[in-house]
């Protein structure tokens, strides 16, 4: 790739001293991108767009928010009622969190389907998981800030999880709280961290994109770019495709903001936090439900470890396992498009995650989907088992046993033969 020649004198002067313009030119203009990317490749840039939306709306919300246990709830209502377009800022931020997770979950499952975690993209994949973890921490602490009933009791349940660890558990929880219960010090530190972590995410995103540009984008065939004919420059082809995707995304996102702003929320969070009154059902936000189901599904002790500790370990393991899948996947083929057996297990995994989400939302003793005789807790246990089975057993075994379909010789060939079905 040759360095671009700048005709504008000012641009050239700056670029000779700090080649930032060349860098952006390489990254967002020339970047050779596979020509066969489907719309599933839109969600990365969408996630980046929402991150910026969240940071901007958040900065303006902070100008009007009071992080104090006695005033936080009132200050949020003041934003909703008295701050000019405060309701818009808050609903953008609240629904933006849900949209962020929708995009990131689709982005992750796309990576899983097309084997985007396999060599040489392991580090790219790891950074992605770190982003997910940072997002979860940020979202959890953000949910505490309005100091509603679900904020308070959700925080109580989740922080209490850390008491499951032997010996250090209880002191750890006291340390996290800054006291002997959730209170003003907890709210203050969560606010501080909720402002900090998005910038950590931003830094990780820079690393993520850097790693991406070093190893290049995967594509639906999973076959690497081999000749210049396989790729096209990022601009204008993918800039316009991303812009179109952004238009579709904004229609969905802003539909919720303007016409169903509380669709993803729990009514209980419009009741001010009351340490003396526990809500009938404490449920986390929807994007945590599958993990919550895994946590609750362990209701037995094992090897002297209490159920609570095992549940916490299982919940963290559900994400940690993603770090090692580049080695758990033994298949020589990246894309599931050419994996006739694994493809169906992938579909099962998606169904499994929805089942887990459903179980996370219901009371353990409820019948599953109205089926008498099948309790939510039992179904949650089966789904948890399958989740780990998928990564720890199915992935390595199917990869070895399966006979993949023949791969196209190149991206260009797959496109010309129309064999890509794209």
């Amino acid at each position, binding site marked *: 790739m040759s360095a671009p020649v700048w005709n504008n004198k000012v641009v050239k002067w700056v670029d000779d001293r700090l080649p930032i313009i060349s860098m952006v030119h390489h990254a967002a203009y020339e970047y050779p991108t596979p020509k066969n990317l489907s*719309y599933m490749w839109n969600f990365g840039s969408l996630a980046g767009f929402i991150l910026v939306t969240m940071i901007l709306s958040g900065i303006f919300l902070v100008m009007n928010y009071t992080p104090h246990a006695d005033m936080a709830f009132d200050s949020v209502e003041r934003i909703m009622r008295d701050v000019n377009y405060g309701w818009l800022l808050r609903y953008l931020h609240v629904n933006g969190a849900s949209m962020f997770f929708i995009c990131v979950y689709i982005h992750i499952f796309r990576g899983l389907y097309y084997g985007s975690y396999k060599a040489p993209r392991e580090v790219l994949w790891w950074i992605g998981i770190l982003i997910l973890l940072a997002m979860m921490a940020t979202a959890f602490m953000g949910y505490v800030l309005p100091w509603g009933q679900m904020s308070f009791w959700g925080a109580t349940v989740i922080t209490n999880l850390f008491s499951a660890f032997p010996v250090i558990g209880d002191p750890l929880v006291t340390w996290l709280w800054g006291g002997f219960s959730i209170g003003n010090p907890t709210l203050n530190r969560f606010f501080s961290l909720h402002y900090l972590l998005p910038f950590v995410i931003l830094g990780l995103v820079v690393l993520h994109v850097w790693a991406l540009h070093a190893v290049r984008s995967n594509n639906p065939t999973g076959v690497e770019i081999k000749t210049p004919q396989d790729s*096209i420059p990022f601009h204008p082809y993918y800039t316009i*495709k991303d*812009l*179109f995707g952004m238009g579709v995304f904004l*229609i969905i996102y802003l539909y919720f903001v*303007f*016409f169903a702003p509380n669709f993803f929320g729990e009514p209980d969070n*419009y009741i001010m936090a009351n340490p003396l009154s526990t809500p009938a059902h404490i449920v986390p936000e929807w994007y945590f439900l599958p993990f919550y189901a895994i946590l609750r599904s362990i209701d037995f002790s094992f090897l002297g470890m209490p159920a609570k500790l095992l549940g916490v370990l299982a919940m963290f393991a559900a994400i940690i396992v993603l770090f090692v899948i580049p080695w758990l996947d033994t298949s020589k083929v990246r894309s599931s498009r050419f994996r006739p057996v694994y493809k169906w297990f992938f579909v099962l995994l998606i169904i499994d995650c929805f089942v887990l989400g459903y179980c996370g*939302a219901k009371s353990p003793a409820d019948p599953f989907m109205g089926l008498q005789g099948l309790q939510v807790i039992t179904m949650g246990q089966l789904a948890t088992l399958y989740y780990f089975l998928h990564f720890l057993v199915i992935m390595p075994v199917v990869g070895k046993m399966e006979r993949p379909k023949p791969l196209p010789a190149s991206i260009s060939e797959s496109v010309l033969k129309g064999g890509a079905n794209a």
Partner: protein
Amino acid sequence: MRKFALTAIAAAFALTAFANASKASEGVVPPEMDWSWKGLFGTYDRAQLQRGFQVFKNVCASCHSMRYLAFRNLEGIGFNDDQVKAIAAEYDIEDGPNDDGEMFTRSGKPADHFPSPFPNAKAAAAANGGATPPDLSLMAKARAHGPDYIHALLTGYEEEAPAGVEMAEGKHYNHYFPGHQISMPPPLYGDDVEYTDGTEASIDQEVQDVTAFLNWIAEPELEARKAMGMKVLLFLLVLTAMLYAVKRKIWAKIEH
């Protein structure tokens, strides 16, 4: 493009179904009412909101607070400046301290918030058989099914508990209240207020009006929100269609 649209629709369906299925369910599902503010183009009925305010201030406000209602907000339900001043002046507001360091009482001004009937939650509980009447500012957003629930609750009292149900002392049987035993006695019987606009104050009319008012104070921005949303979505639909056309044009020569 077809595949894209299908995927998008499937995803939207799955998401909505999932979100609905996974809402924590409790209690009896209230009947769905045909509120004027429902739907993309729904707006509030000012006359109904004013009637609802009348029910609230004459009946509900004797036990329930409404902390987020300032008198000036009443312009939002169609009262003019003078009317708002007159309504505010009906109330005594504690102010101070003055230059002598004393608290004093003066008549209300539009900037004042609606005074609460009790000085604190304990006093409210003591005067109401141990149960604190909740603040009503956010009630329509703080309960599952919002206004439908409020409407069902206010009309859901039974004079006698069903056979076999042991009622605790001072509780009233309500079909829609979680657990069915509610501390609030039936608040409305019909003809509890004399509507200034001459509408007949049947219990059904009163309940619908006060529910509308409670929804308005929970979501006073609703009309501005929907009006802006319409413009934004129309703009985005046109913009996205144009972006799609540009995308087609740019990609026309690329085999992909």
